[in-house]
């Protein structure tokens, strides 16, 4: 009888709070969005199921959750909390990204810089709301629209907010097709949206090989804090473009990135235990995160319009919105909006240029914030 009692006191039902139930519903919502709506399923399925696992109330004395030293989940979460997984994901992304669109149209790179204003204005907002500078930096990086970068910087600057920031970043990345279109419509005229851009020049194999090497040296020297993320991104890209290391590139963009994605998503989800996660801070972080996506989108579009003041060959300002990263969703949003106005206007490849530049831009931004705020 005692044993039965002891067991029931260890059962999840007894300790289940409303917070847990709420978070389980959030997890189910993530799974539904991913499976039914097909929003970023490769990320939302692991995160969603992880949320379920993290919100089954565990028994005191048993090492179960990501926060219990010695638990299996804590070992997996180690790759998140120490920032090991994000660079490995960047390695795989590098090995699957084609920078040709960017190489053939260098001036579009600047759109990827402009969109990073979202990071810094959100930082200012977070400071005003009472977050410490370190926390504000980690929150600002949500505006980079880049999951691995956000996790990396949060792990370094504000580990206690990592769960909220990661969930916010991935949620809004999945919601890019919902967030961006109204802003894009608001800030552009119909004439602007109709601008067709000339097909860019062909890019040689040698350019594609030299690019990751040179670009890494530039980024690394300018912002050493971005060295690991950017280094892995361009290392993966060199594995792909050099054509002599195909088997390594292939493993990096398949087995390796898949394994890391599974473990990262699952353990980030499992870190959202209601007891730690359901705080006023989390709500503020979600509000600030939404803002940062909007600001970043505005930044990219407005800068494109600004550039048009000086350019003879006009840019379609829609592609400025792709500067937020969220590869390749925001580029696809741009393409679809362009086609809605003119079905013969193919903006996808043009939008890829600011899109991948945005990845580099937010990694540099993260490096700067880490350098300035690490003390």
């Amino acid at each position, binding site marked *: *009888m*005692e*044993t*039965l009692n002891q*067991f029931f006191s260890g059962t999840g039902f007894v300790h289940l709070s409303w917070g847990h139930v709420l978070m389980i519903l959030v997890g189910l919502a993530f799974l539904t969005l991913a499976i039914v709506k097909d929003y*970023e*399923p*490769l*990320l939302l399925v692991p995160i969603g199921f992880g949320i379920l696992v993290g919100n089954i109330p565990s028994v005191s004395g048993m090492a179960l959750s990501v926060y219990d030293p010695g638990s299996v989940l804590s070992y997996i979460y180690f790759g998140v909390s120490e920032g090991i997984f994000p660079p490995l*994901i*960047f390695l*795989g*992304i590098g090995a*699957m*990204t*084609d920078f*040709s*669109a960017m190489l*053939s149209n260098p001036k579009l790179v600047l759109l990827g810089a402009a969109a990073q204003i979202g990071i810094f204005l959100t930082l200012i907002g977070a400071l005003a709301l009472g977050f410490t500078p370190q926390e504000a930096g980690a929150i600002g990086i949500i505006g980079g629209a*880049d*999951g*691995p970068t956000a996790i990396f910087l949060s792990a370094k600057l504000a580990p206690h907010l990592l769960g909220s920031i990661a969930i916010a970043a991935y949620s809004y*990345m*999945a919601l890019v097709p919902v967030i961006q279109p109204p802003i894009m419509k608001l800030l552009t005229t119909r004439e602007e949206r109709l601008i067709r851009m000339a*097909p*860019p020049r*062909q*890019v*040689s*194999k*040698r350019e594609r090989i030299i690019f990751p090497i040179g670009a890494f040296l530039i980024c690394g020297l300018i912002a050493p804090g971005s060295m690991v993320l950017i280094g892995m991104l361009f290392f993966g890209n060199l594995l*792909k473009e050099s*054509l002599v290391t*195909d088997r390594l*590139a*292939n493993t990096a*963009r*398949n087995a390796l*990135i898949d394994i890391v*994605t599974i473990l990262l998503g699952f353990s980030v989800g499992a870190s959202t235990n209601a007891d730690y996660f359901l705080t006023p801070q989390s709500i503020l972080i979600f509000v600030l995160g939404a803002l940062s996506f909007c600001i970043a989108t505005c930044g990219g579009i407005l800068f494109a319009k600004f550039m048009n003041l000086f350019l003879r060959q006009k840019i379609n300002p829609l592609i400025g919105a792709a500067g937020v*990263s*969220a*590869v*390749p*969703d925001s580029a696809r949003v741009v*393409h679809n909006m362009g086609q809605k106005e003119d079905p013969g206007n*193919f*903006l*996808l*490849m043009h939008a*890829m240029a600011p899109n991948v530049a945005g*990845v580099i831009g937010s990694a540099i931004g993260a490096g700067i914030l880490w350098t300035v705020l690490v003390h």
Partner: protein
Amino acid sequence: MIQFSPSNILTGNGIAITLTGMLIVFSGLLLISLFISSLPRLLSWLDQLKQKTPAATDSSISAQATELTEPEIHAAISLVLHLELERCGGDLQRITIHERPAMASFWNPRGQMRSLSDRSPYA
């Protein structure tokens, strides 16, 4: 060497653990059993709520086993080949493995990306 001492069973709480344990195992799997047996009814009830009966779409496909012509066979083999290879090895990203000729155009009139995965959600 081997000492059989049934008293240890009691001091070790063996009977209680066994009874509790089997009770929990049975209740767990019984709940799962009830869950999966009620699942079809639950789903059809949900479908009725939605009032959308998208039936009679599958039944229209009827396999016609007529004699295949030469080109049809070639087409079929090539299609299977294409579809399967598309997926094998690295699923969506696999297209990028190919070596590219030095000056190939990455541009394509329909605006399709050539080698960034269509579903890469990582960045």
